[in-house]
């Protein structure tokens, strides 16, 4: 039985089609291929082919228990898939509501995945078609109708009716349930991204709270604007009232200027072909000899230089050629559209990228407002659950450590080590030097694994197939590799790095992309790519005796971050060899000690700091700082005004982990 079977009886030709579909299973992975690899799963080797669009998938593979926000997003993905579709859940038996019941469940291991795929194939060939199917529905898929006025987009209501402002009949409009939902989510969280998100939405629902005033304008001559009713001096038509918002669009602003008599706008002269030529007197252009045209300057430059450029073209029309502007004035037609920085009015679209976008870490949602293919504004949000550090207080120290280790599936060892160190610090235990070395080895192995995982995601994003396969398979090999295996894998890493240095287009793809201002809050490899040599390992005696030196670059762009990570892979290999041992950290017995502990571990994404209070061997208070939390706030400045592809590379270069962001809990 497959819940999402296709309608029809299995007979004749359909039997053949079902067999073909069973052989050709295309999978969409949730929360993402990065999480699959972090759990040691090789999806391609299991015979499933990963696809980028849910429409092309026949299997939805869910890995591990996922938080409610991601479940709802996954439900939308499931509904987008073409039937027959199956839900394959790994590693959890929990109900994934509002997703339907799983068609197949298995343990979280490669062997069980392969077995599950075999059974899925049988399911498909036997049950791909079914005569009695029902439509899949969930509250998150509902589309709500709302009514809005064609002239006053700020008027929105749930029932049909007429506009309170102009009396026109309201027209129905659909609001997408998942967009609505994303919006709700943003309101629930109390992070800084909220404000940015709200501002994005204002582009559509113009803010109602701005004061409006009424001016009178001619329907044929939009440049005629006055404060009182009357007739047009050009054509004699009655002027029509129009509401003006002080802040909404540039056109409105421009009328404001006309109305405000006490601030006369100074006139400058500029060349129609060379806008950079501006002078105070009339004359001709020194560049092309054309006669300069007068232009009013704006006193207020709140929207930046480029925007006032947009404004000036509008001014030109009204000042100079108003006689030719009667018919189909583009200024008039496009006056309510938002302006790009190049001054062109464009339809802006809101598009969510994530939380399961193929080129981004799984669980990360970017809400982009796109102006063509340029990002006008963006907001980043982690849809993973903000886990409470202390499920209950006081909490058993071992439980606490396990919980922290399971927080981020991308780097479990680093957070396990962090918990151990903080607890041992609180209990006043001195860790023997060889244990510390073995732990350092395990941490460095995870760093290699994590950086290789980042490389794979970068390759996936930029369509660099060879790197995706190579780095992906190396990541899986390194994950649980022994010392001997790591030594044996060293040449493969060196070849990979050498190959990357010779790769065509790689440099042009990354140089200058995602450049960060020096004052931005940066952590870990991102900081080290900006010339800051802060690395928690420099302060750690275990690492300094192993001969650790931090990697460093200065350019602070995607290229530098790529190279810092490659350098760190090489360094980590050396450190592992120097340490000569690797051992996943286990907590030394803390007994019934009391005290406060403070520890910092340089995770692959940067330093994570844990402060906790231990009372009689139990954790009573804890506070965690992770590198991804401040990095999440860098997303908007990085993406703004970038071409979409560049913007995604820039965000990717931060190596965000949605699983360990927003986790600060002051006690």
């Amino acid at each position, binding site marked *: 039985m497959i819940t999402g079977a296709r309608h029809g009886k299995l007979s004749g030709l359909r039997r053949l089609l079902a067999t073909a*579909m069973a052989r050709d299973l295309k999978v969409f992975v949730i929360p993402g291929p990065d999480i699959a690899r972090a759990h040691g799963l090789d999806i391609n080797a299991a015979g499933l082919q990963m696809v980028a669009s849910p*429409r*092309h998938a026949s299997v939805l593979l869910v890995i591990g228990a996922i938080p409610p926000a991601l479940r709802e997003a996954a439900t939308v993905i499931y509904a987008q898939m*073409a039937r027959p579709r199956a839900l394959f859940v790994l590693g959890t038996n929990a109900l994934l509501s509002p997703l339907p019941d799983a068609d197949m469940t298995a343990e979280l291991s490669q062997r069980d995945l392969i077995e599950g795929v075999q059974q899925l194939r049988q399911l498909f060939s036997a049950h791909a078609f079914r005569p009695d199917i029902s439509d899949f529905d969930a509250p998150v898929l509902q589309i709500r109708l709302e009514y809005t006025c064609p002239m006053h987009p700020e008027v929105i209501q749930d029932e049909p009716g007429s506009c309170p402002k102009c009396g026109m009949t309201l027209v129905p409009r659909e609001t997408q349930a998942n967009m609505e939902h994303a919006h709700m989510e943003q309101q629930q969280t109390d992070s800084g991204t909220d404000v940015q998100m709200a501002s994005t939405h204002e582009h559509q629902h113009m803010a109602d709270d701005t004061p409006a005033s009424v001016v009178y304008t001619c329907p044929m001559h939009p440049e005629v604007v006055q404060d009182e009713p009357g007739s047009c001096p050009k054509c004699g038509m009655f002027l029509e009232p129009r509401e003006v918002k002080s802040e909404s669009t540039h056109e409105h602003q421009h009328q404001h200027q006309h109305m405000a008599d006490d601030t006369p706008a100074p006139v400058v002269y500029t060349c129609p072909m060379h806008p950079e030529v501006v002078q105070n007197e009339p004359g001709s252009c020194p560049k092309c000899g054309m006669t300069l045209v007068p232009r009013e300057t704006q006193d207020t430059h709140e929207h930046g230089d480029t925007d006032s450029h947009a404004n000036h073209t509008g001014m030109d029309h009204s000042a100079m050629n108003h006689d030719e502007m009667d018919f189909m004035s583009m200024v008039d037609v496009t006056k309510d559209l938002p302006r790009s920085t190049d001054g062109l009015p464009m339809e802006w679209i809101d598009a969510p990228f994530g939380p399961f976008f193929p080129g981004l870490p799984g669980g990360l949602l970017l809400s982009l407002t796109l102006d063509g293919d340029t990002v006008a504004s963006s907001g980043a949000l982690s849809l993973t659950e903000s886990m409470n550090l202390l499920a209950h207080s006081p909490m058993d120290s071992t439980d606490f450590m396990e919980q922290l280790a399971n927080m981020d599936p991308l780097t479990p060892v680093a957070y396990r080590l962090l918990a151990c160190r903080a607890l041992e610090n609180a209990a006043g235990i001195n860790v023997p030097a060889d244990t510390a070395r073995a732990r350092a080895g395990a941490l460095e192995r995870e760093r290699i694994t994590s950086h290789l995982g980042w490389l794979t995601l970068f390759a996936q994003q930029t369509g660099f197939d060879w*790197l995706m396969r190579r780095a992906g398979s190396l990541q899986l090999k390194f994950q649980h590799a022994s010392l001997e295996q790591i030594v044996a894998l060293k040449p493969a890493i060196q070849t990979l790095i050498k190959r990357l240095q010779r*790769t065509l287009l790689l440099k042009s793809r990354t140089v200058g992309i995602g450049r960060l201002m020096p004052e931005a809050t940066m952590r870990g490899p991102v900081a080290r790519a900006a010339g800051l040599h802060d690395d928690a390992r420099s302060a750690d005696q275990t690492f300094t005796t192993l001969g650790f030196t931090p990697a460093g670059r200065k350019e602070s762009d995607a290229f530098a971050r790529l190279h810092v990570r490659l350098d760190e892979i090489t360094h980590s290999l050396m450190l592992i060899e120097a340490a000569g041992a690797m051992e996943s950290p286990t907590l030394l017995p803390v007994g019934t000690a009391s005290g406060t502990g403070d520890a910092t571990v340089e995770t692959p994404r940067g330093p994570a700091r844990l402060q906790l209070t231990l009372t009689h061997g139990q954790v009573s208070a804890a506070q965690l700082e992770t590198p991804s939390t401040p990095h999440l706030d860098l997303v908007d400045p990085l993406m703004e005004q970038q071409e979409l592809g*560049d913007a995604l590379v820039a965000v990717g270069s931060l190596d965000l982990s949605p699983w360990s962001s927003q986790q600060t809990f002051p006690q």
Partner: protein
Amino acid sequence: MTTAVLLLLLAFGAYLVAVLENWATSGRFQLATPAFSALALLGRESVLPRKPDRIFFEVAPTLLLISAVLAAAVIPLTPNLIITDLATGALFINAALVYVLVALIMAGWGPNGAYAMIGGWRFLGQLIAYAMLIVMPITAVVMRAESLLTTQIVVSQAGLWNIVYQPVGFVLFFIAAMALAFLPPFDLTTAKGELAGGVEAEYSGVRLAVFRLGRLVLIITLAAATVVFYLGGWQGPWLPPWAWSAIKILAVTAIMLLAGRYMPRIREANLLSWCWMFGIPLALLNIFLVGVLVLVFS
């Protein structure tokens, strides 16, 4: 009769391209896989997205296929195996392939989705980059052959293939052909990691099958055009003409499919600026050099 044979060959060629593409992406050489993939696509539901532009959405995949098949009509596989030896053959290829752009913009606009739409407009932006680099190298090829007949173009390379006679033109045409077939690293319009499939993202089932078929035919047509214009078409020693055509076309296809695996996707801005700053001057230089050579040696 010839038409039927050639259409069959074209379908067979498209299948081989699918095998090669599967080999390039998965690393496994499996002859049967594309057949199963195609059947599976036919078995799946073809979802109609919400509020589509129905005409654009339905027509786009078919138009892509038609455009590629039309261009294939003037490609000679042997001196006589050609659907129609048009007097304006070399230009006709270019004219037919213009509809690839139309098809992709329709496929981008039709489904009413952001990813698809950006993909479609990206292809339009790309056109400015590659279009001149298709036409200008063809001009130089035609100058040497002194004919627009594709068969005549092949005959003109009897002494020396154009890849040696005008290597600059070959490189430019090859790159532009890859961009026109939106093959990696020029797959800006279907970019998986940037647009989740772009123009393909909203197609499923039968419609996707037609779209993919159109793309495969487009790839093999462009490879065949490269062979006709630069690699001496059917000419070669020992083997019969059709065998040479087949070998050359498949070799060019394989290179086209494999090249993009080893580099990241090109930046849109770079593609445009490089094509204009280097591509077009080089194409002009190529025309000039060929003009001189033609004058000197004739």
